[in-house]
């Protein structure tokens, strides 16, 4: 037996001289660990970190893929904020879109989660049926359906006409096009709903029992137990949905194509067009960085606000 298996002496204020063999074994352990995570590490460096740095560099250049990148300093950024009303409009439209679609979607998801949590028979079938739109909602097929259903001679108008509502070209009307897209986002409330349901089922029932012993009614139990216990899940959904909603692309690109009058020209579509249709790749990179900063600030604000309204069960817990 060598003494490597003995625990290393722990003494304060003394340099611990490690057994070289134990050191060697530890190094080998670390190398194995790095080898094991290396697929991700390589991908992370090659496809995330590298491109991000490249993107930062490109944002200070004029680059169209055909000729080399030409350094132009902060000109792209200046242009974005002072001389590109389309960009300012895209940011505005995106913020409106996010601020309407996310709360409505989550409210809907939360409401139905409460409804299904009462545990009536058949509610699990409903849960799964309501979950389907979440799975297929981002597909091209559903975009095709939406575009056709909300067209001026589409199913929605045919239905509304029975109630005497004048037909409107929903997709092409400047005041309605964004609502059509928001409706599609809300329609996919299934996955936050399932996360809410799982959260609801994790609330220990003895909390409710204790509360009813203390004479708390259903409403007080709801506001004092259910909602506070659910805040971590609400927070998770809020962060994930906000980021996701910010970058909505496929549906907008296919249903309204950013129109009419740029009323639905969400920033993801505008970045795509700038880069791949107008081939202004440097300019698009600058745009992407501004958007990343906006998202980072919003996320940071959400995390900072969490201190005031999100309740975690035990301090110092995971």
């Amino acid at each position, binding site marked *: 037996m060598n003494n490597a298996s003995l625990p290393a002496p722990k003494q304060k204020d003394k340099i611990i001289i490690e057994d070289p063999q134990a050191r060697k074994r530890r190094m080998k352990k670390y190398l194995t*660990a790095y080898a*094991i995570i290396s697929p991700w590490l*390589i*991908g992370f460096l090659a496809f*995330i970190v590298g491109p991000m740095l490249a993107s930062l560099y490109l944002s200070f250049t004029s680059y169209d893929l055909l000729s080399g990148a030409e350094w132009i300093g902060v000109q792209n950024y200046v242009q974005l904020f002072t001389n590109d009303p389309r960009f300012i409009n895209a940011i505005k439209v995106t913020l409106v879109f996010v601020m309407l679609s996310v709360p409505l979607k989550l409210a809907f998801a939360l409401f139905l989660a409460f409804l299904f949590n009462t545990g009536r028979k058949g509610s699990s079938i409903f849960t*799964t049926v309501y979950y389907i739109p979440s799975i297929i909602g981002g597909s091209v097929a559903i975009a095709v359906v939406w575009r*056709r259903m909300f067209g001026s001679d589409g*199913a*929605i108008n045919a239905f509304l006409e029975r109630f005497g509502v004048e037909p409107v070209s929903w997709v092409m009307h400047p005041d309605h096009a964004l609502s059509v897209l928001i409706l599609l986002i809300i329609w996919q409330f299934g996955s936050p709903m399932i996360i809410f349901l799982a959260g609801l089922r994790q609330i220990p029932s003895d909390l409710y029992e204790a509360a009813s012993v203390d004479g708390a009614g259903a409403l007080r139990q709801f506001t004092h137990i259910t909602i506070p216990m659910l805040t971590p899940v609400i927070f998770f959904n809020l962060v994930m949905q906000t980021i996701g909603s910010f970058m909505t692309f496929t549906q907008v690109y296919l249903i309204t194509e950013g129109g009419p009058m740029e009323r639905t020209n969400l920033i993801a579509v505008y970045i795509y067009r700038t880069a791949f249709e107008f081939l202004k790749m440097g300019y698009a990179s600058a745009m992407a960085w501004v958007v990343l900063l906006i998202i980072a600030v919003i996320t940071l604000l959400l995390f900072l606000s969490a201190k005031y309204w999100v309740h975690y069960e035990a301090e110092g817990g995971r």
Partner: protein
Amino acid sequence: MIYPILWMVASSLKPNYEILGDTAASLIPSTFVWSNYTDGWEGFGRYGFDTFFKNSLIITSLVVIGTLMSASIVAYGFARLQFPLKKTLFVCLMGTIMLPVQVILVPQYILFHNLNWVNTFLPLIVPAFLGGAPFFIFLLIQFIRGIPKELDEAATVDGCSTIGIYWRIILPLLQPALVTVAIFSFMWTFDDFLSPLIYLNKPELQTVALGIRNYMDAESGTNWGPILAMSTLSLLPQFILFAFFQKYLVQGVATTGLK
């Protein structure tokens, strides 16, 4: 709630004039136009949906395989092994889940362009083998944390190596989670529109999603029946998977929200 889906299936069997106007909302076609499916399958150009489905299936199955392999082993590393900078790298991993794809879209395109990978399936497939789906890594880390550590320790005592533990202990116990990952990965890749749109410009390389979009661009207004027929077909794999594996899907989603 599922009206749009029913409408799609019903309309895919309607004659074109019934998809529009007064009869648009109805869910029962007056006559069943099965030829919408055969017409649609032929597509509009030189390449039909047989090509598009084949392309989609090749890309999707390779992505699923790559994701399963890379995500499971990387998750094992993060969940069980100790190494320097682990905390920092974990934060990076979580950060990439939230990173908007638009930020890296342009330089990634330039990278793949310089590698001469544009108009091949490689830009869509290779990242999957290199942990390109951090969300799934996170999901599997959560699952592995639920596996008792005593099993690893017992195996170590019995002389099992680090890789051996992954192969003999973790992987078999991870099977339900891997099914979840496989299904999600399949559905998302099959649905994906942005990457094929950017990287696959040749008609013979296009996926189902791209095919439908181009079909809509080329013939909307005159030919909605076949377009909707192909849309319905494109969702068929999703519906089949959902019917058989809904439990895994629901559990998978529920797990992500609860640490």
